[in-house]
């Protein structure tokens, strides 16, 4: 005789509970997402939309008080594209970003490779040191470097002079924007190396040992092994790190702002500072917004590669 389960008969009371659960089931994910989505939507999505809208508006002090901008079409964009200053800033930001990113990636990877060669305790010591550097907040780092390159009593000037690399007594590093940006590059690369090194090292450690052994037996010299086996496996990591570095270094603002006491000369403008200056110091929020939109477009171009790589890895997970 067929059992209740086999006959497929479901009593009425249980039937009702099933359907309610199914409805609740479907709504559940959306409910769970709502708080997080609300915050992100409010603080990121809406302002982003606002940013684009403002870039097409005149938004000065008057508009700020009225809480409403005045539509001017592409006038803001026209004005910044015709401004020589804007292009100088763009070029400066691009060169600065390129310098920071390449130095960070090259030095970071080199140190990661170094970590592979050393004894265990040295590796632990160096990793701990790197983590320590990574932990230093940006504002703290800025102040340390400000002290180190102080023109009077800074240790940098004293050391360079002592090493007979020139006369650096009372040398003001920020008098000349080239040396000034040199300091900023060092500061930023110094802070960025730990992340790159540790991430690359983790990737290197994940390369299956057998592959390296097989390549060695197949006749490859150490450099050939690195080029043929290790690098291709590390490619996704390099893509991600480089993209992230570009994104972060392109946006540099705090370091320059705080180091130069909130009053950087125009020679020190990066795009972020330029946009900030236009908005909060000259109160031309519309112009600032336009500059910011151009920045965002640059970022998304660089981001496209990163996004695609992350999605691919996310897919695998």
């Amino acid at each position, binding site marked *: 005789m067929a059992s209740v389960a086999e006959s497929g008969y479901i009593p009425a009371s249980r039937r009702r509970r099933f359907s309610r659960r199914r409805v609740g089931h479907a709504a559940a994910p959306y409910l769970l997402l709502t708080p997080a989505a609300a915050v992100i939507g409010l603080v990121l999505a809406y302002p982003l939309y606002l940013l684009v809208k403002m870039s097409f508006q005149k938004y000065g002090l008057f508009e700020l008080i009225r809480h409403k901008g005045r539509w001017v079409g592409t006038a803001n964009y026209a004005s910044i594209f015709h401004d020589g200053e804007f292009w100088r800033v763009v070029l400066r930001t691009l060169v600065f970003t390129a310098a920071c990113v390449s130095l960070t990636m090259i030095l970071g990877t080199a140190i990661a490779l170094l970590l592979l060669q050393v004894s265990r305790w040295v590796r632990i010591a160096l990793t701990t040191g790197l983590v320590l550097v990574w932990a230093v907040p940006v504002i703290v780092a800025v102040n340390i470097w400000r002290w180190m390159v102080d023109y009077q009593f800074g240790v940098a000037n004293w050391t360079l002079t002592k090493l007979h690399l020139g006369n650096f007594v009372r040398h003001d590093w920020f008098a000349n924007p080239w040396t000034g940006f040199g300091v900023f590059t060092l500061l930023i690369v110094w802070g960025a190396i730990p992340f790159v090194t540790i991430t690359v090292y983790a990737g290197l450690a994940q390369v299956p040992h057998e592959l390296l052994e*097989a390549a060695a037996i197949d006749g*490859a010299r150490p450099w050939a092994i690195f080029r043929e086996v290790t690098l291709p496996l590390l490619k996704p990591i390099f893509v991600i790190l480089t993209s992230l570095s570009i994104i972060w270094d392109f946006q540099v603002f705090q370091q320059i702002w705080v180091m130069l006491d909130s009053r950087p000369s125009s020679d020190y403008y990066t795009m972020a500072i330029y946009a900030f200056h236009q908005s909060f110091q000259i109160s031309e929020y519309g112009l600032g917004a336009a500059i910011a939109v151009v920045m965002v477009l640059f970022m998304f171009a660089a981001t496209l590669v990163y996004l695609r790589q992350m999605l691919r890895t996310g897919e695998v997970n």
Partner: protein
Amino acid sequence: MAEIEFTHVTKVYGGETPAVRDLNLKVGEGEFVVLVGPSGCGKTTALRMVAGLEEITDGEIRIGDRVVNDLAPRERDIAMVFQNYALYPHKTVYENLAFGLRMRKVPKDEQRRRVEEIAGKLGLADMLGRRPAQLSGGQRQRVAMGRAIVREPEAFLMDEPLSNLDAKLRVQMRAEIARIQKALEVTTLYVTHDQVEAMTMGDRVAVMRDGVLQQVDTPQRLYDAPVNLFVASFVGSPPMNLFEATVEADGSQLVFGETRLDLGSRSLRDYSGRRIVVGIRPEEVREASGWDGARVRGRILLVEALGSEQLVHIEIAATPLERADLVDAAAQPPGPSLGVEDLERSVTLLGRFDRHLLLTPGEAVEVAIDARLLHFFDLETGAALPAANVQAVAGVAG
């Protein structure tokens, strides 16, 4: 083609017990030698020392006429097949096969010729453009073999290449590897933990345990004349039956349980009055009808039907071997049955019986014992005892 020779090779990892102890072994030109033993016995370490992937603490390894102790792996002209294949995941099958040739600066057209030839022979011709992730386990294994073959090295080293394949595929690949090796006549050192693989593939088999070489011999001799209890219990499946007995009457009689066995022409005079270990292979355990020699009374515990034969568990009165350290851990005999009175004095013999015999559990049975087929071992050391006047065994009872 070259010989591989180990001379007093020892490997110690930082102050611990040696992984390999004073290994002396020679693999002749074109010979297929299998290093076999339980995990941790040092076989893989020995192989890796030949490859140059481990440093040699003491002793010398020669490949051909060169001492290779201080040579980097790429200078040794050997090829290795890894357990997990170690195929380059981002390279195609073609590039995997050609890699070693590229590294040795073999000209491009020669590379192509050799790769295509080997790919053809291994059935990989249509897969040259694929990546390892797109291949099945068996195909990957063949690519790993191909990569080694295409280099035409002085010797092949293989580290458990079949462990990751399922049972049927393993049997198939076993034969293929053996065939390839015979055809190419390349000196091969092969490592496995599976004694069936070792016996079926090797010209000679070297059994290792805890870093020490126990015995190296042809498969048949290992089986017929194991040099100690470990080899005796390790080689052969199902494993050899072992139990203790006392030598009496000045070495001419063996006593176990209620049985008094006349040793006939075999004599254990040196062990008179002492206990020894007796071994008998499952196929030598016979039902006693038609046998006019010594018999042992027993009771059938279990009959396992294999189709081609029957594995019968027979309980007899005898003292089991207590020395677990002398035998292979995986070859422990089945435990005593429940409900038996004198647990210390019963031993379960595994016998391989003809499939036509009618045998029922619980039945009493008599087992024929042919003294000429017994193996004897020292109870303290596990070493095989040379019983005087051992003759070649012509026929068996049953």
